[in-house]
């Protein structure tokens, strides 16, 4: 319900500003800091990092994944595309890891702006945003469709 209202709201906003491209054709990109040596990641690598199976980037640098808030539409799309899992499936997945001490889910941020800021601040952080939200502080390493 909340999700559909949100989509509706952004749809209205998009139409109003004539920015439909970023909403109707929303494309997510996985990002790292502009200063990071990483240039490309595969879907499998990103999935392993976000599911707590791997904590390193190719080359050996430790990596910390960042999530959008639990109810963010882009977060649901991200996990559906990368891991093929629904929000409820993911909560069940993480409860398996939490209650065996194997790991904690990725740190959450409120919105894409906060995500960009955090990712830009260090070379060991990865996140995901809408392609339209890209700027010089971060660089895309994987496009998701």
């Amino acid at each position, binding site marked *: 319900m909340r999700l559909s209202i949100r989509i509706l709201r952004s749809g209205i906003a998009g139409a109003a500003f004539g920015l439909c491209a970023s909403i109707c054709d929303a494309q997510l990109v996985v990002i790292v800091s502009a200063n990071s040596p990483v240039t490309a990641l595969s879907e499998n690598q990103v999935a*392993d990092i976000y599911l707590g*199976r791997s904590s390193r980037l190719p080359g050996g640098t430790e990596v910390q994944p960042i999530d959008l808030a639990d109810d963010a539409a882009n977060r649901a799309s991200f996990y559906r595309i990368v891991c093929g899992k629904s929000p409820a*499936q993911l*909560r*069940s*997945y993480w409860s398996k890891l*939490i*209650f065996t*001490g194997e790991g904690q889910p990725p740190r959450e941020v409120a919105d894409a702006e906060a995500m960009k800021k955090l990712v830009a601040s260090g070379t060991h952080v990865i996140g995901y945003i809408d392609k339209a939200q890209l700027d010089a502080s971060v660089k895309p390493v994987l496009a998701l469709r």
Partner: protein
Amino acid sequence: MSRPFISCPGRAFVRSVAFATLFLASASQASNLDSLFTLSGFGTLGATYSSLHTADYAGAAFEPYGAGASRNIDFADDSRVGVQLTARFTSQLSALVQVVSHSNYDNTFTPTLEWANIDYAFTPDLNVRVGRIELPTFLTSDYREVGYANPWVRVPPELYDMAPITNSDGVDGSYRMHIGAVTNTVHLIYGKSAFHAVPGPIRVQAQGIFGAFDTIEYRALNAHFGYLRAHASVPFASDLPVALYSAAASLDMEHWFVQAEIARATAEGLTPGYIGGYATVGLRVGKLTPYVTYAVEHSLGRRVLSENLNNGQRAASCGVRWDFAKNFDLKVQYDRVWTPAESVGLFMNEQPGFRLGSGTNVVTAALDFVF
């Protein structure tokens, strides 16, 4: 209540691990308590009905009563609550304490110290733990009590009751390898354990527990192989060899899942030995997850020292999980249970009039939550 957490020789040892955890915690800076500690919890409120009134249907080992003979609707068997405190002192050193309250062999809900260990990660992929550690005997052993993490109202007892011990006091190590897109984790464990089998006074001690496990993860596929051995001692015999081999796989897709396990367990002189297994298939339809399960425990008919009439059990189940709110689910499950002739199966508290080879219909409703 002054009842001990659990009466076992490793108690002092585990307690010192718990104290060491607290000491390390207080020695760490108090300013970043938020990032240092993580408190999590889980629980299930279950109600179970069994149509056979001459014996109790037991959903889990170690529980003194069940639905059927002792209770018309049993709220104890499938209910539990657990709290876990994780402390991350540095990126390499962490500790975990988990306390669980469920129906105990002595008909109390006295919390037991399920796990308490200190974890040192030499690298992000190689770690060693000391303390009370979970025994990853089967695919979901690590979280068998976390209803929210499992598809059913309870783990299939036909398989899981073959090796119902959940922890061991000792050490373990695990090493994670990345081979292309495959993650492979090798896990070795050594320790000892003690527990009360039902009926209560029978205390079983397991010494020299050694386990080797391998877990393979590739996208939605998860496979688990295990070997476990130990020596069990009971009041009437000691050093009885116990051995278990297990294999399991699950495929967790966006719109469906399938999960199956098989194991062979022998406890010389204590049980006739069993081969058990199950297969579950489920669909994901919006917030609903309907599923069906078929589970078997087959007796190997080996010689036993004292009477053990569990010569196997079978069950066919269907149910549905409803993820009605964030971090909550509601499940309803129906089980049709059969036992072969001359077997009491997993029934207990048999009343006059109970016949070997009986079956029952079980209906369970469960509310699971995590926080």
